[in-house]
């Protein structure tokens, strides 16, 4: 089959853990990309989708399984695969033109051709007049245009995009998306296929022909959704909304791995959500017009939160039994409604009760502190325990999350200077 650009089969990837074991980040990935497609990899932060993109780019090798590009295994950065980065990754000491030329120079092309192609790419992407500017003189949107020009100038078969619009403001991001889709639709781009990593559900529906949904810890493809809408797509189109809703439902569906109140253990990775955000969202949900129940996409829109920001809060609320999330809806429980009515001190008490009842790690820390004669324990003690089951980074985040909750609930105290947990609060 000549139109098959990329074939990923049985891919599995692990990272080494602090204790010498392996942490599974991607598992059982099967993916085919054919000519003329924009494929979206959609998932939460930490679902391994960016890692997958780097494996495709040849920047790392999978632990198991294969990545095949045009019939050849990818064993290193391959010509014909180019990438656009989230943080632009422009070289600040090179001008726009020099940045764009860099990839061609590495190919060893003759100088006149380098210049011709670079100017053509700059022209195509709308950077005319900026050739001699340095990246720091440009706005974020213009910088990402340089990122696009630099990737396109090498005429790649596959363009990899790692959340290319997420560092931009809403308006700029929309302009860039539209421009890109227009060029792609008109066949002006020298590329045959695109893989887009994103955590923005609407962006995926707006741009992609196929969307692959990723689960967290480890990253697996839980669902594939085809998008048949014609370009240019309209966000207000009922069919568009329906697809967005469908993805929300799929992403909040209870999978066996999803941590819920009943299944979380000491070793569950906890989302870092501040108690303030908790209170704020519970109050919003309890008040008009939601009255205890809201559609997640609507809520996200209303609060100007991206799905990626809303999901952790929803997840944490679910862990605390303040709310239930199912079928793309979030619903306050009776305890959640009760929380909304209380004053500051009573809220803290209720929060403490829920924390110690449903977050096993918090219970564990408190028990250890109570058992010790002087009621103190070092942070490293808990960190080491966590690191046996998760990456160092996750362990650090989880402990910070539970520390913040423990402080708000006045369940235990932590002194960052000494790195010690204790039961006493400074009075």
């Amino acid at each position, binding site marked *: 089959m000549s139109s098959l650009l990329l074939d990923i089969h049985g891919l599995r990837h692990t990272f080494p853990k602090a204790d010498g074991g392996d942490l599974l980040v991607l598992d059982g990935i099967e993916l085919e990309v054919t000519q003329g497609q924009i494929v979206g990899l959609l998932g939460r932060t930490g679902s391994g989708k960016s890692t997958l993109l780097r494996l495709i780019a040849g920047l790392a090798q999978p632990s198991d399984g294969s990545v095949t590009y*045009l019939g050849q295994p990818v064993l290193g950065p391959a010509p014909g*695969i180019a990438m656009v980065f989230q943080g632009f990754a422009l070289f600040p000491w090179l001008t726009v033109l020099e940045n764009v030329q860099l990839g061609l120079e*590495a190919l060893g092309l003759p100088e006149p051709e380098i210049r011709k192609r670079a100017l053509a790419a700059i022209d195509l992407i709308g950077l005319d007049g900026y050739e001699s500017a340095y990246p720091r003189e440009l706005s974020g949107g213009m910088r990402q245009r340089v990122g696009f020009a630099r990737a396109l100038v090498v005429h790649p078969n596959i363009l990899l995009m790692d959340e290319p619009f997420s560092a931009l403001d809403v308006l700029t991001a929309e302009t860039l998306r539209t421009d890109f889709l227009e060029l792609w639709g008109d066949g002006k781009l020298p590329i045959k296929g695109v893989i887009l990593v994103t955590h923005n559900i609407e962006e995926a529906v707006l741009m992609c022909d196929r969307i692959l949904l990723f689960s967290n810890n480890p990253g697996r493809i839980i669902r594939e959704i085809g998008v048949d809408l014609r370009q240019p797509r309209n966000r207000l189109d009922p069919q568009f909304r329906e697809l967005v809703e469908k993805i929300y439902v799929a992403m909040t569906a209870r999978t066996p791995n999803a941590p819920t109140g009943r299944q979380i253990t000491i070793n569950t990775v906890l989302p870092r959500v501040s108690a303030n955000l908790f209170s704020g969202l519970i109050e919003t949900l309890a008040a008009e017009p939601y009255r205890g129940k809201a559609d997640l996409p609507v809520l996200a829109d209303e609060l100007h939160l991206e799905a990626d920001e809303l999901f952790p809060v929803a997840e944490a609320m679910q862990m605390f039994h303040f709310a239930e999330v199912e079928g793309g809806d979030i619903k306050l429980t009776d305890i959640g409604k009760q929380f909304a009515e209380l004053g500051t001190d009573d809220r803290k008490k209720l929060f403490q009760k829920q924390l110690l009842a449903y977050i096993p790690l918090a219970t564990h820390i408190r028990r250890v502190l109570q058992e010790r004669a002087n009621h103190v324990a070092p942070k490293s003690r808990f960190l080491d325990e966590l690191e046996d089951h998760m990456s160092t980074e996750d362990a650090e985040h989880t402990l910070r999350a539970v520390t913040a909750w423990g402080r708000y609930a006045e369940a235990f105290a932590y002194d960052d200077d000494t790195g010690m947990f204790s039961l006493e609060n400074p009075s």
Partner: protein
Amino acid sequence: MRVFVPISVGGWVRLFSRWDILAVLLILGLLVFLGEASRHLFEPLADLQRTPPSLDPANLPEYAARTTLRMFIAMALSLLFTFTYATLAAKNKQAERILVPLLDILQSVPILGFISVTVVFFMALAPGRVLGAEFAAIFAIFTSQAWNMAFSFYQSLRTVPTELTEASRCFRLSPWMSFWRVDVPFAMPQLIWNMMMSMSGSWFFVVASEAISVGNTTVTLPGVGSYIALAIEQQNLKAVGWAIGTMLVVILVYDQILFRPLVAWADRFRFEQEPGVVAPQSWVLNILRRSRIVDRVTRPFAVLWRRLLLPRHPDNVEAVRRAPRTRPGWITFQLGLIVFALTAFALWQALRFFTEGITLADVGTVLLLGLATLIRVIVLIALATVVWVPIGVWVGTRPYAAIVVQPIAQFLAAFPANVLFPIVVSGIVAWQLNPNIWLSPLMILGTQWYILFNVIAGASAIPAELRAVGASFRVRGWLWWRRIALPAVLPYYVTGAITASGGSWNASIVAEVASWGNHHLEAKGLGAYIAQQTDAGDFHRIVLGIAVMSLYVVVINRVFWRPLYGYAERKFRLD
């Protein structure tokens, strides 16, 4: 697009702009200077002895040129060392494990010790020629410049943002190309700053390295350093004054025509652009940039340089580049074996060396002398802290004062304090003071400024908002110092104090023994011990002294400065 006209049009007036004329003069001057300074290199050593240095101030321009040339050759070598050693350490995990601690120890070895040990070796390299002595002097200067540059480069290489590395790999830059287009540019601002520090620091050792005398081997190389040595010998205060003046001029000149332009040029390599920071300017760089002749002359070199960076074998035909297959286990084993063998050999050599000429009593004496020097260093750093921290904070919190004082402090740090020694020594002789106490301040004379200008930098970095909060709550007096000023400058202070303390150890070798004509003063201490043994040419005891001093410096860095720095960084970082 700009169109390039291949030849200048519009007559001769346009052909030479005033920038061109200035640029040509600058470059011509540089060439003359290089030619003049290197003319004597291949003369036999005997010639040198026949024309002994004279104190005639008319000789000073030539002496200054030769001294400066030595420093720049050493700087070039330091850069070469930096690019190879630090790159290997940053890119190769196995090598890193050995190279980084090694660099740390090398940094602690007193630089004057290097001179004592290596001079004979270098003299033997080019027997009977000036070149050998030049090698020795340049090597000594090199050792005072290279370590911190290599460290800074290593640290920069390790902090190149992941996305940049990924981008360069993704676009398949060859390792050679990505080194010059990614790694070096990223490290450039830090590296240039360290080059300036190195240059300043090495003045101190220039003075010591031009009049080399180890045992029976005595060589005096023409230069500012030997001029000063002679002036001291002849008790000629006027000549000392001339030398100081010459140094001032030389430092100012290379600061203006080399480092200012470099700093201004390297500004584009800064990865993060803090808002509100004024970009550094340099009039020389402006001239060079605006001159069309310079542009014309340098363009072929730029093209050539770019060609050099291009891959030799364009591999756009081959679809996929194979990842190199390595067997890490085997390599590690081999490397481990080599390191083990080297260590065993070094240990054996060292044991044999020491057992030949050194008794346990010697070791005890040297350790005790080290303690004396340690006490001096501690007391002096404490004194300098008490004096300069309040002044630094006062200056740093007043922008106008900082603009005036900061460059002066940096200049004073660059100024070799050892040229002032004679003045102090003549004072001690005149009033018959106790050298054990009164020679000590010499150790910190040149290094205290690091504390001052770092504290100034720290105090001026206190955010205006924080100061406003202090003012609005009427935080004053001791409370203001305790809660606002001192915590804010602590990380900066520690940086300065580490440099000052390291510098003081180095300086002790010169400062604990001082002479003025026939008057020889001596303080009890490890520095004096090394100096005496160097005079006597007793290699066993020189090495012993150096080893013990390195040991003191390493131990103090590990148990005191490093934890303090970590604490200050963690707790008082403002960001």
